[in-house]
């Protein structure tokens, strides 16, 4: 029983992680190490938003409420914890198409610095937090 449940859970996770826009292989991005980021790595929501916008994430990861071609929506990404997000978005997924030799090398993800990756992850996570945007 326990084994079946475990198998089922693993199957669901694998199925969930399988979906992405792209079909190729390998992307190598170093995971940001804890405490290794320079002090100058500050979070600027606008800049992080530009990273997400320029990578055209929203075209495949539709913002809320529906999946395109069974690709997780953006709010589903926001619900993932940071480590899972790092693996899902930057390390394992997109199958290398955004890398130096990938089909979309002009939008390379592996040129993002650790700080940019950290910022993009925070931006995605913040998406699910309904943070108020003020103006003077």
């Amino acid at each position: 029983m326990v084994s079946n449940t475990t198998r089922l859970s693993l199957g669901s996770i694998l199925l969930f992680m399988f979906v992405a826009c792209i079909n190729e292989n390998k992307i190598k991005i170093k995971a940001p190490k804890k405490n290794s980021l320079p002090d100058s790595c500050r979070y600027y929501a606008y800049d992080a938003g530009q990273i997400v916008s320029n990578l055209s994430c929203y075209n495949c990861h539709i913002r809320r409420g529906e999946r395109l071609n069974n690709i997780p929506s953006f709010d589903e990404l926001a619900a993932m914890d940071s480590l899972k997000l790092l693996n899902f978005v930057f390390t394992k997924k997109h199958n290398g198409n955004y890398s130096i030799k990938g089909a979309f090398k002009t939008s390379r993800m592996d040129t993002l610095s650790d700080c940019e990756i950290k910022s993009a992850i925070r931006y995605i996570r913040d998406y699910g937090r309904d943070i108020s945007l003020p103006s003077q």
Partner: protein
Amino acid sequence: MHISDNGSGELTLYGDFTITLKVLDLTTNGAPNLNSLMTFTQQVITSKLRGGGYKSGVIYFEYNSSTKSFNFRKNHTYSIRYNFNCGVNVIQINMLSQLKGNDFVLAVVDSIGHQFTDQYGKKHNSGGLAQRDGGPAVVSYNEWRKNKYIGVHEFFHTLGLGDIEDLSKKDRLMYHLGDNTSYNISDNERGDMMSFLMRNISDMTKGTYSYTNLNFNTLDLLRRFLKDTTNGFKYNKAKFR
């Protein structure tokens, strides 16, 4: 709505949108200048969305212009021109029953107690507050009178844009530290808003579709937004029942 492929990696998206922004006056003593502020807001939104948007390096699925459909097994990098005509209506509503499921809403309140600290460490009062990507927007009536662009700024958060604090970009409408030199929108920002409005490119191949602005319950979101004590909204609660 339709898509045109020039065969050299550029898709042009054509279509007509009608955007309706519903303004809800929650001020205690009324807002005598509300009509002129709404007219101004409608004009500015219309002009800022005019001319379409442009985004390059957009990775999506390959478009087949003969079948007018996307191939979900093959990717392609495109430049996209958003050639949309956006009709904009900014209308006042007097009853909550006029606020339906996924409407865009701008509530006008007496004042906003919320303060924010910019990236330079300076504290500011908030003249407006919004939740991005389809969420409700709120402006303080007095601050709106002082800065007529606040209504547009907040609404553009609703359409997905973020705030700018870079001092070299004081000429941008989304710069939010109060000392703007102008109120420009970049092609990229326009493209982001068009992309938000369109939501899903592949839906465009299905002909005319009714845009449902995300699966939001605007009234419930606005209620929670107004009740959130960290926002410090002061308004006539009797008008929101």
